[in-house]
């Protein structure tokens, strides 16, 4: 009998995005609850190794589309494979990670398969034989229960919201090859190059995030004499603060975040912004340095497990959300904390 639960492995240049295995592992548990099997879709070129890993994380069956035309992710080519396979296999549910590619694939699959999509859910429950899900809306200011009444129920799972996947090298499963559905000359996009992201941990994958806000520029420092413009002085100061923040993030193996105020003031690129109009994150440890805690920032990080706030202003709203608070200057506290953490982690 066909498997009721399907999951999609998101990969880039042959490496699976870690969230893919969270989805496979969650799919395994759902399949067990429903007394069914799990089918996993692996799409790319030279990605056969991922099929075996998918089995270790819970797949009973892997459908492998391995073709040179699928080397670069191109939405139309990939979506065609997903729709064809799911159209043939008729799963009850089709799961994706909430990554850029996962979101696109889920949306396109909903169109092709005449169904709907539940995006970025943090919880999936089985009520009778109907799946229901919980998803944050308004950047997590509210939660919504959602149900997809058509099949397949297409769902994308928020990164780090589901159980940490555990591999079992002893599991076995089948690998079936499937074909690409578009020839190269039918594909309307061409990837002409990549520029790698700056080195470092990505915000949405990070277990630890250390963030800076406007407070990074709020310190008397000896500014180099050739910087005279007020805005440039402010940005230079902020960058000294972000160096300290980067040092702490490094010591903890984490990523650097920032408030919208810091990004809008030009202290740090937008890719670091945490909040409603930046990235929504939920690390195990979030350290906010010189961030007052505007509602749109809080919306982006309030689901972090442990929040630490360091701020000069004892009335800053961020303290209400913090497990631990330090009323003090980040320029004094962050370097001292970096040393203290290094001692404890290296020891």
């Amino acid at each position, binding site marked *: 009998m066909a498997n009721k639960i399907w999951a999609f492995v998101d990969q880039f240049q042959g490496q699976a995005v870690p969230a893919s295995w969270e989805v496979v592992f969650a799919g395994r548990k759902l399949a067990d609850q429903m007394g069914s099997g799990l089918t996993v879709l692996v799409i790319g070129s030279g990605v056969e190794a991922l099929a075996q890993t998918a089995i270790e994380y819970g797949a009973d069956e892997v459908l492998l589309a391995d073709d040179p035309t699928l080397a670069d992710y191109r939405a139309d080519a990939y979506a065609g494979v997903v729709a064809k396979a799911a159209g043939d296999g008729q799963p009850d549910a089709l799961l994706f990670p909430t990554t850029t590619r996962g979101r696109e694939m889920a949306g396109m699959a909903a169109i092709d398969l005449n169904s709907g999509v539940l995006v970025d859910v943090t919880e999936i429950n089985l009520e009778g034989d109907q799946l229901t899900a919980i998803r944050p809306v308004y950047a997590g200011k509210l*939660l919504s229960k959602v149900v997809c009444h058509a099949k397949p129920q297409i769902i994308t799972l928020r990164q780090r919201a589901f159980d940490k996947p555990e591999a079992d090298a002893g599991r076995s499963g089948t690998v079936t090859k499937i074909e690409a559905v578009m020839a190269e000359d039918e594909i309307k996009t061409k990837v002409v190059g990549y520029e790698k992201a700056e080195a470092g941990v990505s915000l949405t994958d990070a277990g630890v995030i250390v963030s800076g806000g406007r407070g990074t520029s709020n310190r008397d420092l000896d500014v180099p004499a050739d910087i005279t413009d007020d805005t440039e002085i402010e940005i230079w100061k902020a960058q000294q603060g972000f160096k300290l923040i980067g040092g702490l993030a490094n010591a903890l193996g984490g990523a650097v975040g920032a408030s919208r105020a810091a990004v809008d003031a030009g202290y740090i690129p937008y890719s670091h912004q945490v909040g409603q109009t930046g990235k929504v994150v939920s690390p195990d440890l979030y350290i906010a340095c010189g961030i007052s805690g505007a509602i749109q920032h809080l919306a982006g990080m309030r689901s972090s497990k442990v929040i630490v706030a360091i701020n000069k202003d004892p009335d800053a709203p961020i303290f209400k959300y913090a497990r631990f608070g330090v009323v003090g200057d980040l320029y004094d506290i962050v370097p001292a904390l970096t040393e203290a953490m290094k001692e404890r982690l290296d020891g």
Partner: protein
Amino acid sequence: MKIIVCVKQVPDSAATMSVEGGKVSWGDAPLVINPWDEYAVEAALRITEEHGGDVVALSLGDENAKEAIKHALAMGCAEAHLVNDPALAGSDSQAVARVLAAAVEKLGDADLVVFGKQAIDSDTGTTAAMVARLLGWPALTLVSAIDEVADDHIKVDRAMEEGRQKVEASLPAVLSIVKDYGEPRYPSFMGIRKASRAEVPELTSADLGIDPPEAVVSWPEVMEPPARDISNEIIEGGSPEEIAAKLADKIMEEKVL
């Protein structure tokens, strides 16, 4: 070049959201154009400023959507259309995409359809990909820069998790724009005056030649997130080193590293 930019009206990002009587409330916060859509309008305007043509704003909603449309017009869009049909209330994302795709076809001759990255109310971020799929056009989502626009193709940078992907696609195409693209302009005085006088034609599903698409996703319940059970603890000490040592011990005790 004809560019259609899709805009949505949402509660301001500074709004405190709550649930009252099972319904979402944003208190007395204003409704504004979805902040991401301002980047979409900006990108569309810059393309036509360089290559000629007009930008047409398109929205789906009720009377409330008019503020978003006015903002887009005030920024410089040449005209705007509102799909306003009570039969479309309760539409889910695929239904919205089906209506927008039909409206794009009805308006006709578009070279590009441009979206913001996502709407800050529902946070789904799938509409651009869905509309592209319905139209059979390439989807270029999360565009951070536009490198080249020609009669039959476009070259863009996409902000992916792994870095910037440079992609070339045939036209017509669907784009979604991210904040790295560049700051949206403020509406000019003349723009605001023009927008306040503009007629915004309204369309129903019948005008688009479609039956209202059926929603397949429902949201039976909206909740406020459970209050976090946090005991706040302020760490004090005589020196930064002393404070840091205490804080470091506390962090280690949480066993999250």
